[in-house]
């Protein structure tokens, strides 16, 4: 066989077609015994290129084919078989095609220009070959030989892959390193957010929209980042989580959003987060109380502050360290919801770490809080430290009930349920009522505050919903910082990797932000404050409790 023959675009032989239309098993046979000529570029030649290349990209990056046909990799002389997904091209050759040297192995640069250099290409080990053609690439991928017939290094597997999938892959290779993620050009970058537009939260949505618009307008007025101007687009939540997902999915596609910031996903976490993972759109600082940080991680989503689970963990840590608490029976009372069950799990984990005995758990159906029975049970077990996950109203009725019998256990509440109503608690709980906060005014540096105030003044930001505004503002600030650090040649993947490198980044308004390969909550921990019921104010009860 002549390996120097230029790529054949003029159709497959009948024989190769029969060989390649079989199942993976036959493909394996084909590459061991048959000549195996490719059939790429025929069956789907009419389709727009973008489609083929998109399919090829999945093969390149994930080692699986959108066609659903199996891809197998065979390694070394003994043909160790592994699924293609364990050794996709991008593993070694990198998302940019330049190759990721490791442990003395230097993968070839597989960008089209490098492969098709019009002269004999020498490699570091002395291997030399004429330029690759499509045909040559097929042989390299399926048989492990270069255009000169040299064997490739034994860590380059030979792939059993359907001819059409192979064609898709090669179509993508021609583009590799030149493509750009959606929503980014030389002069523009598209950032999106999701705001609630109807109902009780509409006002907050307006405030978030205003601060996000202002932040990027200000950034643009300073020249943008690497000469790129920001364009901010908005999507709105709908009445149901699934409808919101549909909205946002359409939004990302139609508007070509590069990344999302400060999106309101509270209540639709389960729908939104898998969507972002699927669309590979990074989201920084979503507004939610329930970060989804279970293994395996959703790589795309970076949270600012601890959610309820993190805050309650901090409470447990606080209780375990406080001398007058640590000897007491710990109880947790919560409305029975899926989310709360996970919080309770987190509490148990934290209890183990802090060496306190597992808390007694009492659940109740949401909306059906039998407060008399709960207090009876708590008293019976002499639970002197009660972590309460229900709303403020339920918390107040619990304390009122306990007050009737002059029983005052310590009550710990997550800030989620916090409003000023809490100051209406029976005075007997003075000094016994505790709140967790994921951030505190102590985190606000003079500079951070000054910057925010200047922005608020210049753009006439609303004066209400400050917490939501600050959250959205910090999310945008982190995104901007990450884009600066990632460099001009940025992609979504690069943005994610850059964020994973954030260590103690001061936003000026929240605790310092740290992310990592296994960490998606920027400020993991909480403050505990006690409630002064006489003066009606919060009093710090702890410093920053870090949960690292």
């Amino acid at each position: 066989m002549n390996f120097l023959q230029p790529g054949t675009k003029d159709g497959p032989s009948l024989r190769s077609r029969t060989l390649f239309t079989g199942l993976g098993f036959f493909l394996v046979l084909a590459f061991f015994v048959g000549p195996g000529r490719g059939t790429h570029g025929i069956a789907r030649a009419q389709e727009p290129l973008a489609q083929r290349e998109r399919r090829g990209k999945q093969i390149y990056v994930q080692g699986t084919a959108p066609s659903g046909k199996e891809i197998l990799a065979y390694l070394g002389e003994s043909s160790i078989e592994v699924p293609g997904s364990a050794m996709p091209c991008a593993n070694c050759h990198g998302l940019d095609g330049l190759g990721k040297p490791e442990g003395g192995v230097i993968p070839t640069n597989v960008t089209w220009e490098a492969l098709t250099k019009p002269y004999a290409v020498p490699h570091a080990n002395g291997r030399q070959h004429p330029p690759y053609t499509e045909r040559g690439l097929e042989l390299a991928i399926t048989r492990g030989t270069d255009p000169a017939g040299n064997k490739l290094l034994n860590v380059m597997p030979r792939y059993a892959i359907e001819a059409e999938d192979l064609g898709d892959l090669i179509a993508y290779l021609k583009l590799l390193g030149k493509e750009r993620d959606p929503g980014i050009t030389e002069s523009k970058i598209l950032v999106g957010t999701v705001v609630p537009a109807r109902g009780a939260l509409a006002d907050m949505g307006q405030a978030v929209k205003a601060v996000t618009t202002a932040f990027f307008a200000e950034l643009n007025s300073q020249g943008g980042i690497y000469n790129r101007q920001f364009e901010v687009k908005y999507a709105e939540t709908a009445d149901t989580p699934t409808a919101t997902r549909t909205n946002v999915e359409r939004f990302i596609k139609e508007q070509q959003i590069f990344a999302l910031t400060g999106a309101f996903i509270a209540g639709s976490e389960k729908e939104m987060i898998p969507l972002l993972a699927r669309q590979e759109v990074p989201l920084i600082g979503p507004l939610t109380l329930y970060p989804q940080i279970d293994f395996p991680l959703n790589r795309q989503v970076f949270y600012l502050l601890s959610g309820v689970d993190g805050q309650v963990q901090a409470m447990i840590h606080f209780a375990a360290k406080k001398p007058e608490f640590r000897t007491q029976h710990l109880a947790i009372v919560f409305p029975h919801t899926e989310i709360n069950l996970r919080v309770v799990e987190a509490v148990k984990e934290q209890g183990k770490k802090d060496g306190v005995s597992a808390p007694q758990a009492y659940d109740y159906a949401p909306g059906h809080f039998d407060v008399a029975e709960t207090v009876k049970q708590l008293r019976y077990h002499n639970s002197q430290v009660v972590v309460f996950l229900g709303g403020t109203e339920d918390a107040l009725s619990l304390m009122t009930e306990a007050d009737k019998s002059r029983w005052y256990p310590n009550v710990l509440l997550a800030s989620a349920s916090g409003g000023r109503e809490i100051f209406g608690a029976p005075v007997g709980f003075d000094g016994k009522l505790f709140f967790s906060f994921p951030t505190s005014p102590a985190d606000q540096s003079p500079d951070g505050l000054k910057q925010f105030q200047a922005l608020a003044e210049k753009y006439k930001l609303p004066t209400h919903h400050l917490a939501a505004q600050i959250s959205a503002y910090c999310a945008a600030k982190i995104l901007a910082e990450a884009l600066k650090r990632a460099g001009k040649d940025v992609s979504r993947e690069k943005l994610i990797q850059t964020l994973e490198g954030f260590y103690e980044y001061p936003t000026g308004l929240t605790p310092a932000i740290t992310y990592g390969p296994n960490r998606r909550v920027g400020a993991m921990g909480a403050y505990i404050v006690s409630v002064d019921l006489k003066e009606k104010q919060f009093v710090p009860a702890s410093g920053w409790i870090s949960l690292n």
Partner: protein
Amino acid sequence: MLTKAIIVALVFGLVSAAAPAIDSSLLSARGQKKPRQKVQRQVARYACPMHPDITSTKQGKCPKCGMRLRLVTVKDPVEAPASTPAATAAKEADDSTGFSSSRVPDVKVYDQNGNRLNFYTDLVKNKTVAINFIFTTCTTICPPMTATFRRVQQELANAALDVQLISISVDPSTDTPERLRDFAAKFKAAPGWTFVTGDKAEMDSLLRALGAAVADKNDHTPMILVGNDTTGYWTRTYGLSAPTTLVKVITAAANHK
């Protein structure tokens, strides 16, 4: 610099000494053929971790910063710090590696199921082991190395050889037990193959002791450490060799008298 040069020479020498186990791909992978070097005999030498120019033949402290000097090279493993449990049990180490069971620390580690283990007592003691070094976000050499290890495991099982396979993470701060479990599942690792991670400091001491410590995880070498703790025979080999070659080396270790 001198210390580094010596370590490089030593490691390279060790790899060369296991020459039968190395196929030509090592040399081609490195980019150029280098003449093989003989293992140099070394005397015990201690150096400051911060000031490599401060060296001594005795234990002590660095006059510049006061840090405890660390062992850099040894002539005879018996001279190694006696903090390890098997120091007396270990027999004469194989000369080609300068490595012995007494150098395997009994640090606390986690396996891929989150169990807490003592590295030496639970994984190495009285066993024949093959140890490679991986990290789960390593994409270029770890997948082929792990796939090869899987094949080795199958062939050893076919030959009814009882050998423990161990994959140690060189990136313990990223590699949680969950990540290791995922990685193991991807390559269908069977029981008898332990993936190991742990606290950074302990893992660093483990990696240093096993000669696999690197400053940049991407520089970690595809090296496999093979040992028979019962007889005290240890050798190193190239992790990207053909599985049959590895099986030969491991079988030799298992049958070592």
